[in-house]
């Protein structure tokens, strides 16, 4: 029992536990849209893009959240715009735009020494520095994100599944895409300080992939992915304290263990479900009518 209660005696651990759990749930929730839209690389890409914005903010003395947030949103919208031209795939568009932004951040690092100091924490994350302000921030962002998703549930589902028909049915697809990019940017921004670039990319993808292996229902996938993200965030943070290793790594590895267990249990059925992620618009599988009406 001491194993569980001892870390809670430290305020920074309590704060970090809340932040990791809530950030895990938030990334799990948004990760469902990201993976089903075939944009699993977006978490990795956006966090790198925001790095460029964060470096610029540090260089010119602008508030980190405002500057990097605008930068992240602009990068996300640019990715969406390039992807819709269909000449370049989503992965290539993310690769081009976000790595250019990352490279811009690296250049700034070379010019400004003071940027280097404030940016290192952004790149690698720092759980030790989690304050009650960070807790309030992630809670606020999560509550707002859930409210936006609930209010736009049908439009988000429709545009993720079938944007062309959604447009015909009256859904403002471009507006919904921009809204999702805004949510992602804000989620990454509010999680980045404590979790680092590596975890955010994994936190977006792993829970959603595991949830997809467990269910064929979109609504259940949202709940499951959020719960898996929260659980891996909480467990990974605890392991980090006891093993004295970086929290980002333990959270990602916890997520991977969950993935491996579910993969082993669900077998080919789970794999077949998850196989559709990032590989859209293929022909309908050959299912005989006899089997379908059994």
């Amino acid at each position, binding site marked *: 029992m001491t194993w569980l209660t001892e870390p809670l005696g430290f305020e920074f651990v309590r704060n970090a536990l809340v932040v990791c759990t809530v950030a895990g749930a938030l990334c799990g929730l948004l990760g469902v849209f990201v993976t089903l839209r075939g944009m699993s690389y977006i978490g990795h890409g956006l966090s790198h893009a925001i790095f460029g914005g964060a470096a610029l903010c540090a260089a010119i003395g602008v508030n980190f959240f405002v500057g990097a947030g605008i930068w992240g949103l602009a990068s996300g919208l640019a990715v969406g715009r390039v992807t819709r031209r269909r000449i370049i795939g989503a992965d290539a568009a993310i690769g081009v735009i976000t790595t250019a932004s990352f490279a811009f951040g690296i250049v700034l690092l070379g010019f400004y020494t003071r940027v280097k100091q404030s940016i290192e924490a952004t790149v690698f994350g720092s759980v030790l520095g989690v304050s009650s302000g960070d807790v309030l921030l992630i809670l606020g962002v999560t509550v707002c994100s859930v409210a936006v998703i609930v209010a736009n549930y049908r439009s988000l589902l429709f545009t993720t599944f079938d944007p062309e028909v959604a447009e015909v049915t009256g859904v403002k697809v471009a507006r919904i895409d921009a809204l999702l990019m805004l949510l992602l940017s804000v989620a990454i921004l509010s999680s980045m300080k404590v979790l680092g670039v590596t975890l955010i990319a994994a936190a977006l993808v792993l829970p959603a992939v595991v949830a997809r292996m467990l269910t064929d229902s979109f*609504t259940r996938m949202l709940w499951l992915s959020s719960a898996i993200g929260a659980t891996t965030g909480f467990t990974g943070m605890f392991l980090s304290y006891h093993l004295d290793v970086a929290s980002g790594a333990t959270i990602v590895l916890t997520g991977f263990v969950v993935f491996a267990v579910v993969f082993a249990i669900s077998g080919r059925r789970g794999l077949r479900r998850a196989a559709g992620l990032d590989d859209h618009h293929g022909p309908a599988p050959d299912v005989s009518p006899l089997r379908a009406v059994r």
Partner: protein
Amino acid sequence: MSEPLVELRHVSHRYGNGASVLRDVDLRIGGESMLGIVGPSGSGKTTLLRVLLGTVRPGHGHVERRKGLRLGYVPQVEVVDWYFPVTVLETVLMARPARRLRPWATPVEKAEAEAVLERLGIAGLGRRHIRELSGGQQQRVFIARALLGQPELLLLDEPTSGVDVRTRHEVLHLLEELHRDGLAVVLTTHDLNGMAAHLPELLCLNVCVQAAGPPLAVLRPDVLERTYGAPMDVLEHAGLPFVVDRPGVRVS
């Protein structure tokens, strides 16, 4: 003749690279229409459908839609992501009106969706994943989604593409039934012979309208050669035209 639902006058459109995809197209879709748009790949069928839908704004010409017109659209099943985690009922309910901020469907909306599924003969499949259905059932799900908004005009992109003969018959019979119930139907297709038996009107398209009218008037060797760029023969069986390749002819 009733007031047209959609009317196109001298509509032309080009791709981004400047290539003409539609040229001087005139088309009138009335409440009584049941029209098949046929033509080879790249002939402008899908663009014409999108002009009718309003998702493509043509570079030239006029498009008039009756005010308040309700449209239903069924995409090609080949572009559907069959691994997407949605059940049949969730798919149909995507088309429910977006009047409220509540994420879940009301009992009334669910009942409406169930009623459409029952009308299309797939009642009881609501909880199934869309991948678990036969080809004909899958088409019906997407038609059901289009019907939930109670459209006056149903537009379908290649509903018989990539499906077996049985499914093609199922889908075309269903569309005939819906048309008899008062729904105007426009579909695009590659399939010449399957259409003649089910559609009273055909439009042969290859950038320009090559011919339009009843199948017997449209499916003629000269029209088909202009449309497809290959010589074809037309046989008649039970009063219906059947298109066959001309043996021994090599297309240059």
